[in-house]
């Protein structure tokens, strides 16, 4: 009896991991796994470059450029942008382009104010602010 139930128990365990194996059998893990490895590598690179004093004030730009490359990988391989309809690609691009419009024209104000990139705004003396607890919804 116990031998049988033991055999049944082992068979059950085999079935579960066998099921997991069968679930993935024939599922082509590429290119997703390769892209994942590349993403992890790029993230590591970004981390290292950010910690080293190599780029000075440009280090954030470098990190963002690497992020851009990682984003491109995600877009192309995880989000299938290559085989997407033209209008889909245009939609994604429109989001980015419009963001650049927002950045660009907003910066046309901030970069041309008095002083080097400076805002001529001085913090005002704190007068008559409504206390936080007093302000309702």
């Amino acid at each position, binding site marked *: 009896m116990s031998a049988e139930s033991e055999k049944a128990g082992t068979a059950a365990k085999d079935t579960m991991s066998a*099921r*997991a194996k*069968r*679930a*993935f059998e024939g*599922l*082509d*893990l590429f290119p*997703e*796994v390769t*892209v*994942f490895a590349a*993403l*992890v590598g790029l*993230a590591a690179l*970004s*981390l290292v470059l*950010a*910690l*080293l*004093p*190599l*780029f*000075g*004030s440009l*280090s*954030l730009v470098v*990190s*963002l450029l*690497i*992020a851009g490359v*990682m*984003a491109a990988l*995600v*877009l192309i*391989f*995880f*989000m299938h942008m290559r085989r*997407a*309809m033209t*209008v*889909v690609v245009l*939609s*994604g691009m*429109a*989001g*980015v382009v*419009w*963001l650049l419009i*927002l*950045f660009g024209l*907003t*910066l046309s104000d*901030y*970069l041309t104010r008095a002083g080097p*990139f*400076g*805002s001529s705004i001085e*913090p005002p003396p704190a007068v008559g602010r409504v206390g*936080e607890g007093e302000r309702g919804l």
Partner: protein
Amino acid sequence: MSNTPFPGQEAAALPPRALASHFHDLSQQKAAHDLGLWIFLATEILFFGGLFAAYLVYALLHPGPFFEAAAETEIVIGTINTAILLTSGLTAALAVKAAGQNRHDAVLLLIGITILLGLAFLAAKGYEYWLDIHHHLYPTSPDFPLDAPAAKLFWSLYWVMTGLHAVHMTVGLGVWAVIWEMARRRSFSLSDNSRVRIAGLYWAFVDLMWLFLWPLLYLAGRAG
């Protein structure tokens, strides 16, 4: 309505169950779903983009104190979270692939792992928030550790940016959970129905946003 056969109509002549009655065929439906989601993602780019605009402006106006404040974020937790999210992006992409091949067990396993990784991300984030509060790193704290006023600008942006991202992740996890349950009950066709693919796209986008938040909030101001 479109799936009820007329008397004498062959079952094979029925349109697929996944096809909504106002579309002609599955390819039109899939095109509509894809375009709809991508347009929505474009709106999300602009939604987060407003925050990036604020970051850009203040980083240019007050670079010193802004990046000094950035060095106070929990880089270890942030980087671990990046790794978690990248992995969940992999499992989600594989889940979409498996769904396209009607692999029921693989889909359940992969979505399950994605959900677990997402929960791990949120747990780490929660712990990180606890640490941040413990270090008084919120602008209204009387013990805010940095002197320069603009440091509070960075830390205001940090809370809003990561908070908004966490909200999006939570929504994504909710969507995955619902889909997982429906897939478990086999209530929809994995390959005909768009939902796994659409959820995968949304999740990849949330991943994408984090790929930009991580350098802006965690890697900035660390050089040297």
